[in-house]
């Protein structure tokens, strides 16, 4: 009886591991895996060029910003470029760029 119970417990753990592995393989990240957190902020990057200012695609922003000589912290944003021409990224955009491997120094 004891052996049967032990095997049942082991099998239950294995079953859970199996389900998690399958969901990981299928790239389903349920809340219980710890990969999910609520974050309503959007990645944002603003390009300023003299009087011109526009929200630009974060992907292209990463590439352009990573080519800049330096980036400075300005309040909660990172600003890359000069005073007259720069890219201003919020923290989520900075994280996105770093995840993709674009280092913003």
């Amino acid at each position, binding site marked *: 009886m004891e052996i049967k119970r032990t*095997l049942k417990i082991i099998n239950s753990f*294995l079953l859970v591991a199996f389900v998690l592995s*399958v969901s990981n393989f299928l790239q389903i990240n349920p809340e219980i895996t710890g990969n999910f957190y609520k974050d309503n902020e959007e990645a944002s990057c603003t390009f300023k060029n003299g009087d011109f200012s526009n929200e630009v695609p*974060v*992907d292209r922003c990463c590439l352009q910003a990573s*080519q*800049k000589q330096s980036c400075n912290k300005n309040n909660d944003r990172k600003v890359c470029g000069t005073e007259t021409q720069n890219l201003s990224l919020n923290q989520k955009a900075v994280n996105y760029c770093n995840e993709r*491997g674009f280092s913003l120094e």
Partner: protein
Amino acid sequence: MKEVSALNKYIHALITVLLISSTAGLHYMSQEEVQRPQANESLPTFEGIQINQENKTVDLESMTLRQKTAFTVVSFNYEKEINKNKIVGGMHLRSAGSKREFKERIENNTEGRPIPPLISADLEGCIEPTSSFRDFKSFKQVNNSQQAYEIGKTQGEFLSDIGVDINFSPVVDLNDSIWGCRTFEGNYSEVSEKACSYIKGLDEKGIKSTAKHYPGKTLTGKDPHEEMKHVEIREKDLAAFHSAMNCSVDAVMPSHQISTGKIDTQGAPADVSNVTRNHIRENGFEGLIVSDAISMGGITHYYKKDRNRYIDLFQTNDLILNLVGGVNDTARMITTIEKAVENGNLEQRFVDDSARRVLNARGWNVKVREGNETKIYEAY
């Protein structure tokens, strides 16, 4: 206390074995099929390559697959100096604080190498790497072809002076609603004329040009960073690219967008689509096909495995812009491509052809054996 029957034990043992093996199997399958960098893995050396420095000729047959692949990858200028015996295919310039700094950086990476890397830059007159010490007129400010020619010459002179080989410019998309400064103003005919004049200006100073981002409509629309971007291409979107090819542009850069209409990439991003390569080559273009930065979400979201992304990129492009990760990442990509060819997942002719074109663009004549004949492809 009842005894566990032999059958029950057998069933439990079977389930346990099945679960362990399937879990392990799934874990293995979910791993990236990309070679992980080993401690001793790095860029290949020049060893064994037959190089004639006098007539600037290199024998493609004397190169290993790994060496050929290395010549086709462009990275950012590396933070640390790379051993002079290692092959650095290409180096893309980050911003610098002065002209002198640019020159020093380039010299540090080129001098002493039997075949120096191809040096590239993004000098478009807008968001340029020189912005902290020098501004150039943006394309938006160019009113006519003469001005486009002049800005081409001015930029060409600067780039030539610091040691750049190829400029990833001009953008010949018809509109730029994102940056507002990267495209020429006017209809497709005016954009084509200005682009040709600009290319001529660069060429006069010995700088190679790149028409981007094929097949157009890259700098419009909403932010696609979390999903693939789809565009419909019209004949007039292609006009400036065809015009640039007729004006002897040296390279064409396809975009990460999925296109329909006149260029139907069949659901794949343009820079990993055979349709793109075939269309560009069918137009008689024999120059370089250069990928856009390959870490952008526009292409990474399309693939689950890096290996497949690399293979498709090598099937479509001659020069691969791997602008993240440094030496280790480049070495890893080279190893992945090497394995893909060895395993029959990528035809070697793609690597051979790309290496030959890149070396030609870098100013080297390339000796190639085709059947029983030996042919020399001349530098340009």
